[in-house]
């Protein structure tokens, strides 16, 4: 209640008659119905036992600094294929970490494990398909291929996408487009990437990648 009154007072203070200035000057008609004043008891004012400045703000530690992610969603073979894709698609370049340094595959194990069925199915199908194709073509798992061998499988699956939402209809091409984008995003949004950027003096991009204004849950329904 107090905050609302405060906000209302703020709004009332700078009375900038924007519309009035722009409006044609016509005499205001009398309201057809007169407002009946309501009475609202004032919220009692009481001394709080302590002020906000007396409550200490404690330094907390980010969870990523205290433990290692424990991937558990993908099978060992699927996860090995995902790590191989991470190493190939987003290697460390210049002063930036690659997908493996940013633990992007570990993060995607968590993200896909928490995703709707269609996203999970796409990943499982894609990882299994790559591995299967590798065993057929090179008689070894995808994760053991050298860069040239992997490229012979991956290159035909790459497509141009004018919009990020434009995914090809072929499921394996779609998977490659999706996992490529996810690995890049998970890498560029990592703590490691941010630290490297800070070290090299680069500014962050506002928006989806890097940093931005985060909106907290506003008056969430669960607290109602």
């Amino acid at each position, binding site marked *: 209640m107090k905050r609302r009154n405060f906000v209302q007072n703020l709004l009332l203070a700078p009375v900038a008659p924007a519309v009035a200035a722009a409006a*044609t000057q016509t005499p205001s008609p009398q309201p057809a119905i007169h407002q009946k004043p309501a009475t609202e008891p004032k919220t009692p004012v009481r001394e709080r036992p302590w002020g906000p400045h007396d409550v200490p703000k404690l330094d907390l530690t980010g969870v990523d600094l205290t433990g290692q992610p424990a991937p558990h969603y993908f099978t060992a073979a699927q996860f090995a294929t995902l790590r191989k894709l991470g190493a190939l698609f987003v290697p460390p370049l210049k002063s930036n970490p690659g997908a493996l340094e940013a633990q992007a595959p570990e993060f995607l194990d968590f993200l896909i494990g928490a995703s709707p069925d269609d996203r999970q199915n796409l990943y499982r199908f894609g990882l299994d398909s790559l591995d299967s194709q590798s065993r057929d073509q090179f008689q070894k798992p995808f994760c053991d291929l050298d860069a040239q061998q992997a490229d012979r499988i991956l290159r035909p699956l790459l497509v141009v996408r004018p*919009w990020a939402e434009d995914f090809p209809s072929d499921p394996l091409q779609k998977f490659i487009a999706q996992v490529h984008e996810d690995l890049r995003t998970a890498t560029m*949004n990592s703590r490691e990437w941010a630290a490297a950027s800070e070290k090299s003096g680069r500014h962050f991009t506002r928006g989806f990648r890097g940093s931005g204004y985060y909106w907290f849950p506003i008056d969430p329904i669960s607290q109602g």
Partner: protein
Amino acid sequence: MPVKTYDVLIVGSGHSGGMAANILTSKGISCLMLNAGPEADYEKDRALKHAYELPYRGFDKPGRLPHVFQANEFNANQWVDEKEVPYTCPSDAPYNWVRVRLLGGRSLFWARQSFRLSNLEFKAAEIDGEGENWPISLEDLAPYYSRVEKIFRVAGRKEGWPQFPDGDFVEINYPPDTDSIKRFTQIATKQGVGVSKWRSALGKDGLASSINLLLPDALATGKLDIVENAIVREISVDKNTGLANGAHFVDRHSGREMHVKTRVVVLAAGCLESTRLLLNSKIGNSSGVMGHYLVDQMYGVSVVASVPEARDGKAPPGLMGGNAFIPRFRNLSKKDKRNFIKGYCVGISSGGNANANFFPLYGEELQAKLDSYANSCVSGSIFGERVARYENHVRIDSEVKDRWGIPVLHIEARDTDNERNLCKDAADTIEEWFHDAGWEIICKTDRVNPPGYSIHEVGTCRMGDDPKKSVLNKWCQSHDVKNIFVVDGASFVTCGWQNPTMTILSLSMRASEYLAEQMRTNAV
């Protein structure tokens, strides 16, 4: 405890509701505004953060907002939760309904592009040879556009083109065009296509919302009360008169049911929400047209090119950067025979980087390409007009209810060959311009994003002179229930290619002044 009584209930607090409150209270009319969501506190409710600090590293909680392509984890809490307030659509016709229920609604986040409709839109049937004209013309709305443009401080360059009506613009000094924009302009102009600049609402302190430009004045009159987290369930009707006499609403948190009695109801809940409320209230639809003629603009056609002499960081000063805007240039007269009706605008932006998804590459090879093409790109994208069709509609899906037990909307909207042909023409035309400029085409698409993506949905309570063919009259007043006004985008007959905000604001201003006069004379 005695409660206040109000003359007018306004449902919704965005641009249209804010304008209604502003006008009505300025004339001494007491208003209650019910808003379905809470008030945001820009200081408390947001903070600058790294993506890695967010629970999902910027991806957002999977499956949370499948239809809001604009959502990411930074802004996810702005949008209406699709699980809390769902809607349905056919599996083969997805619809992206992008909603904000915070106080101020979508006026908090709009792109601020500010255009007038022209008589090509108001009198569309005359040039298209099909469809309906609006019951008003540009001349009817022009005085209101002018006043709205002053309030929102619209910056623009006057051109004198009938398809791109000039307004009362704030004069600003546009920076001189870069050489890439000059080159583009030369090519387009040679083809008889007019090249202008974006028209944008400057607002105040970077915000052009109802919460900073309209509602403060209304509150200052002492004639407006705003209640947050109040979800209107149904408009109540006096059985004797058939007129609306208030509304039933529910507290968002507690679920407590309430009723407010008012003399007039103004709906400004945002096009489809206003229509949903009327449909759930089972009023105002003697024409059978309510819910139909849903329309919005097409967004998705895009061409990206690279300026060769700007690659590898070698762009000389003054080559790259800047933008241009091309208002509708197709079908300006009946002589222009195309395989589609309507038209589109094109936005040109120079000096961007290439996206990774533009190239079928990965790893070091991709990074080298991105580095080489950095700051060398020019992009062109469109807002195209869809045709308003009876078949594209919303209706109540009584099988599905939202968190408060209110039946949800079923939305059906599909494109036809007209939309596809228009988009193909746009992509081919932009490609040709870029090619003629000597630029390398990187990617091109004529694919259209699903309906709703543009967040410019309008129609479903179209206005008209004939009560058998329209829901509202030319004053946004219900033909059937004279004390109900719908002042958001639901009244639109056609959508045009223009961002609809200036038109919504102007229609709301016009309707509100009409309403005030009707109340003064006891006609309502």
